[in-house]
């Protein structure tokens, strides 16, 4: 049975149909043969009975006149029938009066006569007893025995025919089985092929071709559904992988930019410190002209502040991505804050700076985080200065409903439509790092802070015509700030 379980569906199907055909045919053959045997026996029995009756009729006179020669002559006429092996005639007293034995092996003696007529089949073959009557008087008995060699011959011939039919039927069953298995096994094999090619080529868009209905059809359908799922999953995973690798690439890029940015102020800082050290070691420090020393120190201070800003930005990014930004809300008059920041970024003493035009609504007062709001303003205005090509910058504030709208507008290089979508992302910048310094974190941080304050930020821009950044904030950030960034 283990061998059977290991058989292919094709094999099982073939085996099944052949087995069924074989069993059915064997039963039929057995039924036909056994029926034939009984029919043959009956017909042989009846024909032997009538033969015995004819012999009896022919032998009546000879029996009556005790003519043994005539009786034996009559009996020997039975020798023409090959199946007859022994024939006897008994007189009215039951003693053997005539006997005929077919040539060949000894046929034995005549059995004691029986009074009943009819045929019976025994070990020695088929035997018949028929009485001989003359004018209603029983004058003797005829006995005929057949060895049923005709039956044996008939049976062996029929067995050959049955064998031939069996072979033919087997061949037919085999042919039918092969045709049927094509309906069952072929779709399964096709499905297997599909599964194989899917897993080899890793192509999840391949589908098994539907083949009719039934269980196999359902299986094919289910298989295709599964492939649909796998294809969706695969696409999603591919997309995720792409996103992740893109993010990784961006991070690596950022790391290289960040290290470069951090390194940039360090080199002059170290040179300045070494200069001062050299002066101190040689005792020249006291004699060094104070204005030159002052310039040296203020240069160093600029580098340090630049480093501090960079480190602050990095810390902010770390905080923001960890969701650890903490807000300290307080009552703030927006116009004062804007003026303060602008003043800090554009001291009157620096004439090269672009002009910053303010259009402020002095009535706007809200609940915000001062430091973060400053950060937003610094980032946006610094960007406007950086990419504004020296042209005037507009900063406007207004109330739109219960919301503050803060605009920072420049007339600089502008941002392309494609870049507008991604500039608020982490480590993203529209321009290459080689031409413009900075970590590219400003807008990301701005975006995150604005979100934390419960507002939104967007950009309107056209290449070559400048950009306008709008920050929309609720007047009270404590009511609408994102819960995770709630003031604590």
């Amino acid at each position: 049975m283990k061998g059977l379980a290991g058989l292919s569906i094709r094999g099982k199907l073939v085996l099944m149909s052949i087995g069924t055909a074989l069993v059915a045919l064997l039963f039929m053959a057995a039924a036909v043969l056994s029926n034939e045997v009984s029919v043959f026996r009956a017909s042989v029995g009846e024909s032997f009975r009538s033969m015995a009756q004819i012999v009896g009729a022919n032998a009546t006179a000879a029996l009556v006149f005790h003519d043994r020669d005539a009786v034996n002559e009559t009996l020997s006429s039975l020798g023409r029938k090959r199946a007859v092996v022994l024939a006897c005639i008994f007189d009215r007293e039951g003693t053997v009066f005539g006997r005929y034995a077919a040539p060949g092996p000894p046929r034995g003696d005549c059995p004691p006569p029986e009074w009943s007529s009819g045929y019976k089949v025994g070990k020695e073959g088929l035997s018949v007893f028929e009485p001989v009557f003359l004018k209603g008087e029983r004058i003797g008995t005829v006995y005929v025995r057949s060895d049923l060699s005709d039956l044996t011959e008939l049976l062996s011939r029929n067995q050959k025919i049955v064998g031939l039919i069996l072979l033919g039927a087997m061949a037919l069953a085999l042919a039918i089985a092969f045709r049927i298995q094509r309906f069952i096994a072929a779709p399964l094999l096709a499905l297997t092929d599909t599964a194989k090619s899917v897993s080899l080529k890793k192509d999840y868009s391949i589908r098994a071709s539907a083949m009719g209905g039934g269980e196999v059809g359902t299986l094919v359908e289910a298989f295709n559904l599964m492939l649909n799922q796998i294809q969706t999953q695969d696409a999603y995973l591919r997309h995720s992988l792409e996103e992740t690798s893109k993010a990784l690439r961006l991070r690596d890029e950022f790391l290289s930019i960040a290290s470069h940015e951090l390194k940039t102020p360090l080199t002059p800082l170290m040179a300045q410190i070494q200069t001062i050290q050299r002066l101190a070691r040689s005792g020249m420090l006291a004699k060094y002209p104070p204005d030159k020393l002052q310039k040296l120190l203020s240069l160093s201070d600029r580098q340090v502040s630049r480093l501090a800003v960079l480190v602050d930005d990095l810390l902010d990014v770390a905080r923001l991505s960890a969701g650890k930004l903490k807000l300290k809300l307080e009552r703030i008059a927006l116009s004062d804050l804007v003026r303060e920041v602008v003043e800090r970024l554009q001291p009157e003493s620096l004439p090269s700076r672009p002009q910053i035009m303010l259009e402020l609504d002095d009535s706007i007062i809200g609940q915000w985080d001062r430091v973060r709001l400053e950060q937003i303003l610094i980032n946006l205005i610094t960007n406007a200065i950086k990419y504004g090509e020296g042209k005037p910058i507009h900063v406007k504030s207004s109330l739109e409903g219960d919301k503050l709208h803060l605009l920072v507008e420049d007339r600089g290089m502008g941002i392309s439509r494609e870049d507008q979508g991604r500039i608020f992302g982490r480590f993203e910048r529209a321009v290459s790092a080689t031409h413009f310094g900075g970590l590219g974190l400003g807008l990301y941080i701005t975006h995150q802070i604005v979100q934390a304050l419960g507002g939104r930020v967007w950009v309107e821009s056209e290449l070559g015509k400048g950009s306008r950044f709008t920050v929309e904030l609720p007047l009270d950030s404590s009511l609408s700030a994102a819960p995770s960034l709630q003031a604590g």
Partner: protein
Amino acid sequence: MTRKPRHNRFITILVCIFALTYADLYASAKEYQVKAAYLTHFLKFIQWPEPPPSSRSAAICIIGEDPFGSDLNELMKGERINGRPVEVKRVSRMEDTRACMILFVSQSERERVPSLVRFVRGKHAGDVGTLLVGDSPDFAEKGGAIQFITESGKIRFIVNLEAAEAAGLKISSRMLALAKVLRPR
């Protein structure tokens, strides 16, 4: 002591003669028993024409010396021809044979065979059909219907079909199968 062998020889011869005679007698008696049985069997294989309604019995007649003794009477007891009981008769005159259905012509009457044949043939339709049976040489040749013969110790019979048919008798083919049939020339 010389007389004794002569006496012995005489006795031996006597015994021999007696034995031979007795054996002959015995054989002869046995032969007629069989012939009587055959006569009885003939009834089963031969069909007689319907006898005139006046006859009440079927006569089996023996003309001449009776070789059967009581055997024939014994064997014929209870037999019937055409529904009439069989009666065995011994006759001597030809006229007495008119009602016989079987007429056995004894060897002693062999000279009268031709006249008996003529007598039987001269009967008219409506008379009793007579089966002439005999065992004298050339009985059938001379016109008898059935003649007993002995062949290698067995008793058989010759049938003169023409004679039987002339008497209006039908003999079964089964019986004819056992007989020597004398065909009309």
